[in-house]
């Protein structure tokens, strides 16, 4: 099935998926925390739009609820919270120096290819939208992990973590029209609690090591000095 033959909704969803992935790439290369959080919010927004469109096109009302929750959590609450912490801890001027940015970007690109490679064989019987959407959400998940591996600010880690959640959410929405409601709610609850806990931890970490650099948290190691 070629892309021309798809309906417009699907085309939009696919485009949004591509944009979500693109935002992941932007986050990957982003050294400034405020911008990182902003991009994250944008990603969340694109996710919400995709969900809403999917809800409309599949005529699946409970996806609206998901979209609403996501909007509240990932576009508003979490970015707000992170931003507040950044400002409070006076980190908005820090620029994280990323080593080997090119290599990371290349790695990210190959992850996208890899996602296709992994999911392609099992998706041969299903629609192109699904294949693309699932592969892209897997790529987002992997890129989120890569983000966490390459950044060493705790806040960046939270953003990475949340973008993984975004990827999961996108996968759930697009490929399966959303998980059962109970599960959605449960997941949302977990994300909320996690977000709150992250906030608490920022304070603790900052008070214990005087920064949010995770590289400085290596007291618990077993390597010979």
């Amino acid at each position, binding site marked *: 099935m070629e892309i021309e033959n798809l309906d417009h909704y699907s085309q939009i969803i696919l485009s949004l998926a591509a944009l979500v992935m693109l935002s992941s790439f932007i986050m990957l290369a982003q050294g400034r925390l405020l911008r990182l959080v902003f991009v994250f919010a944008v990603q969340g927004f694109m996710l919400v739009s995709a969900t809403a469109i999917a809800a409309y096109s599949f005529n699946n009302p409970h996806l609206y609820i998901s979209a609403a929750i996501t909007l509240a959590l990932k576009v508003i609450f979490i970015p707000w919270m992170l931003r507040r912490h950044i400002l409070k801890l006076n980190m908005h001027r820090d620029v994280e120096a990323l080593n080997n940015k090119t290599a990371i970007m290349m790695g990210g690109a190959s992850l996208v290819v890899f996602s296709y490679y992994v999911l392609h064989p099992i998706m041969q019987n299903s629609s192109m939208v699904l294949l693309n959407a699932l592969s892209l959400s897997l790529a987002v998940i992997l890129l989120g992990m890569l983000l966490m591996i390459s950044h060493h600010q705790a806040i960046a880690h939270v953003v990475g973590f949340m973008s993984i959640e975004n990827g999961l959410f996108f996968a759930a929405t697009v490929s*399966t029209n959303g998980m059962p409601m109970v599960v959605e709610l449960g997941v949302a609850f*977990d994300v909320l609690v996690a977000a709150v806990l992250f906030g608490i*931890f920022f304070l603790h970490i900052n008070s*214990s090591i005087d920064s949010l650099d995770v590289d400085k948290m290596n007291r618990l190691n077993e390597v010979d000095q």
Partner: protein
Amino acid sequence: MIPAYLLLLLPLLGILYFGLLGHKEDVGKQNIRFNGVTLLLSLWLAVNVFLSGTILSTDQYFIVDSFNVYLIVLTAFVGFTTSIFSAPYMAHEQEIGKLTANRLRLYYSMYQGFMFAMYLVLTTNNMGIMWVAMEAATLATVLLVSLYRTPESIEAAWKYFILCGVGIAQALFGTILLYYAAIQISDVDNALTWSVLYENAKLLDPEILEIAFVFMLIGYGTKIGLVPLHNWLPDAHSEGPTPMSAVLSGLLLNDALYAVVRNKMLVDGATDSHIAGYLMMGFGMLSFLVAAFFLHRQKDIKRLFSYSSIEHMGLMTFAFGIGTPFATFAALLHMTVHSLTKSAIFVTVGHAAQISGTQSIEKIRGLIKTQPQVGWGLLIGTLAIAGFPPFGVFASEFLVLLATMQSYPWLAPFLLLGIGIACAGLFRNIQPMVYGEKPEGQQAVQANLWPVMIHLAIVLWLGLAMPDFLADWFTQATILISGSAPL
């Protein structure tokens, strides 16, 4: 089904109760009572299942079969005995000023929260809920790990949080894939219902399920502590309060493994390739061997035993991976004896650390001379966990070995190598702690060692003569998991 609901309800009440009233004097005793009642409920449930077979709730959200009911009883039991231990332990911690009353409130509230999450993981019939509950268990315990608010404990909690969070996210992706495979064959409402999926497992797309299983294994495997996803585990065990380490080692790891096994049952139903089994065997063996070597270089007593947990979880994963009835039986038995023994050990370890005021192995000395019960408890517990007969760990390890011999004889030497190295690793650290003269100024502490004795007695009993009803129970679970009875 009523006991199951009550079982879930009571810890939920517990969260609220301790959240509100947890700063009271006799809060430790209240906790014991709560857990005691849940233990009774779990036994009630067990009797029901034992008499009438698998129970499925009418809305299909909950299932209690012979596999999970025994884990429920185990969870309730270890939760109960650990609460007995934790009462004087936490009181002592408060006395010496390591904790405030508010933190204690948090501790008891989250203890119940953790128990709730565990019961939910075990009883739910919905793979999505299982995931949610598993994540909830992380969330409940992460604050307990950082309870002391030392830099180390915060670091450990952060690592625990991030690594398990990221890990478990993979499991969610796996669940989504499973869901995707399921909606092809079933209606949306039941697409994540395990019992339905299990019946129709043959219809599921094997390729999707295999990929889904990889994600699940990585996800829940992080919680099991499989090498190389284990890194959070020793940190979290060593820095949290000891009762927490006991339940983490004794329960959380088991339940994560339970989740993996549930998924494996689906994958095995869908495909004949046994790929899930091979993956689990590979991970299990790797964890088993690597952890055995890790034991040799530990400086912290709780880290030591957390690596031992990794080792044993590896062994169980390996045994479930083999998948023959024999191996499954062995793995179930090993789950039981490991939980009991390991939580008993953590109890003694907690007291040992209180006696000497540190967790550093180098500074803990002469326990037998200072407080014989603690010293002997630790020593005998270590013997048991190292797989010396007549304790039950030996019986289960023997069975695992037997199963390995039958299916993959060339792996048996590695297994034994691991056991030998682990034994050496444990004892080179334990011996100096328990033996020898006591250091200046070391004092005995108030300790309640009944949990240790009860656990070790049960483990001994299992090793010497497994009671028939328990054997039947295990056999039923084995039939459920692997399709036929051992011998």
